[in-house]
């Protein structure tokens, strides 16, 4: 699934100051019987967002009117659990383009990058500052600059750098995924087959 190019983003953020958010919380297993890749955003954090009678749970961040934006900021060890790619799809489909945390589970990170969702790792201290800034003002803007690998808290101007594999960076900047890349080297693949 091709996705939008990612260069620079300035947006408020939705805070989820919870640790070890696993893929079963992000998208419960019962939604894996689908044959299409749509509507996963509706079921993002399903059991935290809605109660048993499908009424929104007012206290959950995604249901609070003061929070909005394309950035999700979450506690450490985000995305642990099963390898289901649906977790990354759900977050992207909901409208997020960036997830910020102090630690990501490996497979989730790979799945996110494969699907146009940028995982930004920051220090635990900086993460605390981000949560504090949103608490003080939910409309606080953050800037994500992929080209320069820089994340900025615009109110104070405090920036931090973040890591990303150069190949993955190239893919995100150009809105390409691995499949586009593989299709683009079809001749090399066919030459390999003839060897």
């Amino acid at each position: 699934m091709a996705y939008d190019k990612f260069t620079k983003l300035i947006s408020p953020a939705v805070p989820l100051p919870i640790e070890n958010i696993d893929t079963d919380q992000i998208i419960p297993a019962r939604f894996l019987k689908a044959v299409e890749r749509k509507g996963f955003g509706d079921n993002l954090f399903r059991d935290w967002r809605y109660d048993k009678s499908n009424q929104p749970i007012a206290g959950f961040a995604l249901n609070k009117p003061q929070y909005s934006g394309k950035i999700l900021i979450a506690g450490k060890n985000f995305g642990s659990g099963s390898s289901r790619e649906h977790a990354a799809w759900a977050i992207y489909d909901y409208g997020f383009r960036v997830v910020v945390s102090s630690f990501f589970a490996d497979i989730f990170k790979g799945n996110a990058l494969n699907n146009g969702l940028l995982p930004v790792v920051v220090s635990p201290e900086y993460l605390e500052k981000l949560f504090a800034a949103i608490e003080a003002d939910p409309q606080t803007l953050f800037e994500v600059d992929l080209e320069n690998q820089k994340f900025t808290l615009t109110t104070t101007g405090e920036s931090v750098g973040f890591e990303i594999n150069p190949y993955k960076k190239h893919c995100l900047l150009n809105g390409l995924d691995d499949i586009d890349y593989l299709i683009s080297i079809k001749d090399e693949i066919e030459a390999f087959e003839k060897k």
Partner: protein
Amino acid sequence: MEPKTLFDKIWDAHVVKRVEGGPNVLYIDRHFIHEVTSPVAFLGLKNRGRKVLRPEQTVATPDHNVPTVNQHLSIKDELSRNQVETLKRNCEEHGIVYHGLGTEGHGVVHIIGPEMGITQPGMTIVCGDSHTSTHGAFGAIAFGIGTSEVEMVLASQCIMQPKPKKMRITVNGELGKGVTAKDIALYIISQISTSGGTGHFVEFAGSAIESLTMEGRMTLCNMSIECGARGGMIAPDETTFNYVKGRKYAPQGADWDKALAYWKTLKSDEGAVFDTEYTFDAANIEPMITYGTNPGMGMGVSQTIPTGDGLTGTDKISFEKSLQYMGYRGGEKMLGKPVDYVFVGSCTNGRIEDFRAFANFVKGRKKADNVTAWIVPGSKAVEKQIIAEGLVEILNEAGFELRQPGCSACLAMNDDKIPEGKYSVSTSNRNFEGRQGPGARTLLASPLTAAAAAVTGKITDPREFL
């Protein structure tokens, strides 16, 4: 030339390209697909207006979601039926061989591949299912992939992967009476934990491994991912060649000779270096059983459940949570604990040898009244062989019924769910909370230990009966 591992030899022969600052482009020889992880990949392909590049290298079968009774009827669960029908439609559209319910070639993906000779030494094999590692038993590099990667393979016959580290696990010596490949697997995971293999690809070696049949080797490689490894493999030898020879898709005539000459080069060179090595003595392995909620929580069936003394912090919390879920206490014996269900099947232990072992054990005995048993062949071919060998009469006489092939209670996506709070001795591969149904309590074991539980109605050391 620098000595190479078996893994290096196969991997390096499949690298199409090394991407600057990125992963390797790896060529894939065989791709298995099933109904749960492929539909979205086909949809992605369609959205890009692409065709499957090499449909003849892809094989499909529905297994995860299918009922294991009355397979001739339409599937009742609407979502499951839709997934199965979608798979069939996608295969028709793209010219992929599809082994539908009730046909000759139907079964769990990891069982039908080897059975038909599609799985061969030296190949790279992938499937959107983590237990693809099963095929490593033939000296192939085989591992599970995500849905985006399924789409990559459909579109380009390649995936992009960084090269993993290498581990060798050597098991020397002779296996004791009643000790099977499943017990070796559970023993290794109990020793190195469910994360011991993280980042690695494992080669199993040593005299105890070489003595295993192909079925046993598949069971072991199947479970290799439960120690966190990407996959497991065993160097091909006469046992492997004899198994592959003459199967439907195996090379024939001159092609066979050529393939065989290559396959014989597939072993780790003397002096090849592994990033990590473990060595175990087969004599220390007992029939195993798990007592907790991950496959690393296993022990010899005659032992006592660990107390968790010495654990601290989150380790202690999760250990206690696990025992609480199971309704067990540290220090108790597993022997004699009641059993409600017995499941024999899955890609771990759903091959003919497993049913022979089970049937021989229950022959002349009776199923315990308190036990519900699900005996589920891994494929149509296994089902037929069970019937042809007369095992089905033995099973029936002892009070067991044979079901139809599928994943069944391994992951309980169909109706074969263990009820909440019930204990299930299962020959499958995962004992996670809720894996066999919400609230189900799973005890992983070999078909022999499962048979002993099925006839006594409680956890029993199968060696008592041998």
